[in-house]
């Protein structure tokens, strides 16, 4: 490592940290305002609210029917996680183990839904979903959310599967394991950390996925983030604190899973799993 100790270099380093500090400070202050406001009795034109209360949580819970919304959210999210895991892991296994004509095209097809922003492909997709009758239903939202998550699982799992020596599988075959037993007793235990990491990230992404859920959801299939959007969208109808209380509930549901996920993965993987593999 090269240590530069000239004054110019030190000033430069300080400037860089000031920029990072400014960014992080604003980010944390922004999150803090939401949390403080959700506990505030009245907060207008002062540094801190006049008093603290927890009543907004109970009022938000009943106003927005959060109990029901949370049930719908988790039904959708866990269905997406399960299906994305099934479709993604099997496809990743084939992609990692076989070289076939057209593999590059298939890879491109798996990359596209991650690179194209959801709103761009979401509008034609919602049109097709509504015309085929699943738009606005539970399964419409699940299908829409599977579009970015299946390729995500595939791309995260390919390097994990490539790490496993094919000889281990060959040995299991020699000792008479069928495909199902091979998967259950050999591959699954070795892949479990990777699968768990990929699925936790899918979970976080699906809870936070606004655009696709927003476009595909009907009144009974809205997830928490869409309900939050509608309540911010119509200001003045409800107290700001009540909306903030819901925002805090949303934050907690997302962050619990994120913290769990971060025990298994490096944060850079959340944006750059496929790329870091190529770069190294």
């Amino acid at each position, binding site marked *: 490592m090269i240590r530069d100790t000239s004054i110019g270099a030190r000033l430069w380093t300080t400037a860089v940290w000031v920029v990072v500090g400014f960014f992080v400070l604003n980010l944390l202050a922004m999150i803090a305002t939401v949390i403080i406001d959700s506990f505030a009795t009245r907060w207008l034109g002062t540094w801190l609210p006049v008093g603290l209360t927890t009543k907004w949580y109970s009022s938000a819970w009943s106003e927005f029917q959060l109990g029901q919304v949370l049930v719908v959210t988790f039904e959708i999210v866990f269905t997406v996680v399960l299906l994305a895991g099934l479709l993604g892991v*099997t496809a990743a296994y084939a992609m990692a183990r076989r070289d076939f004509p057209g593999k590059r095209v298939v890879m491109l097809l798996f990359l596209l839904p991650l690179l194209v922003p959801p709103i761009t492909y979401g509008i034609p997709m919602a049109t097709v979903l509504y015309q085929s009758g699943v738009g606005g239903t539970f399964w419409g939202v699940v299908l829409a959310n599977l579009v970015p998550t299946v390729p995500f699982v595939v791309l995260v799992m390919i390097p994990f599967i490539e790490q496993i020596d094919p000889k281990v599988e060959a040995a299991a075959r020699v000792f008479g394991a069928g495909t199902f037993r091979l998967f259950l007793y050999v591959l699954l235990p070795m892949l479990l950390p990777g699968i768990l990491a990929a699925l936790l990230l899918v979970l976080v992404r699906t809870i936070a996925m606004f655009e696709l859920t927003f476009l595909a959801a009907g009144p009974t299939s809205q997830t928490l983030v869409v309900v939050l959007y509608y309540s911010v969208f119509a200001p003045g109808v409800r107290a700001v604190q009540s909306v903030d209380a819901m925002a805090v509930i949303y934050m907690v549901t997302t962050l619990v899973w994120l913290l769990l996920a971060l025990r298994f993965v490096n944060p850079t993987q959340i944006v750059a799993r496929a790329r870091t593999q190529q770069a190294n």
Partner: protein
Amino acid sequence: MSTPDAPVSLRRRLALRGLDGTTLLIAPALLFLLAVFVYPFLYGLWLSFAPKAGPWFSNYAAFFSDPFQYNTIWTTLALALPVTVISLLVAIPVAFRVRLMRRQRLLTTILVLPITLGTVLIAQGLLNYLGPQGWFSRTLMFLHLTGGPVRLTHNYWGVFASILITGFPFTFLLTLSYVTGIDPALEQAGATLGASAWQRFRHIFLPLLVPGLAISFLLSFVQSFAVFPSAVLVGAPAGPTRVISIAAYQAAFEKYDYSMASAIAMIMAAVQLVVVVLVLAGRNMFYRGSTSGGKG
């Protein structure tokens, strides 16, 4: 797998080319994407040429003859381009510092927060934080940097801040993964030969980083170009921040003109594609090759 009745030789020939039962495991995921991602896109393209009234191109003609519609392209570019350039320019020096850190995990975890929380929550937070009575405005007044409250929400700057907060961590983490992919031995060789910090960056790192930076630029540009919830919530969706995704959404879900909405979505994809092609063409003028040291 080939049909059971087919001669064994065919199955073996396919297996030699990598097509056997295992390859078929791709089929469910592939069919799913073809049905829910590729087909809707092609259908949308076709639908955009089948307007409610008029000749086949009338959706596009209507879009490009109405300033209220075609100006959304400029509005969106005026948001997405500055944010992307600023994110990238800030991300490079920060990534160069962070790569020397031992414990990057705390910082990267803090930066992953906005990506995880998503644009809706950020927009909601910024309404409180950047509002005329929010902490940001109050701090500026406290430091006597401004005379009165500053208006940063429900205009261009609110959306700008919102895209920056969600976009910068993404750009930074991508850039960091590229910067750490460069062999430090190359820099040490440069330093041994007496190159200053700026020379090492300009002549060693920058040429190696350009391909990666082009990808970071494109990914974050495409994401900011598709800004939607924050343009509605912290912006002024009727005027200064009426971005192209709002135009597409209004056509689809307020006027129920799916044909027009598909046309706008296709225009949005086309503008993104143009920028992608331009940047990739520019990238080809630079060095492309190994980022590792050693002989070769």
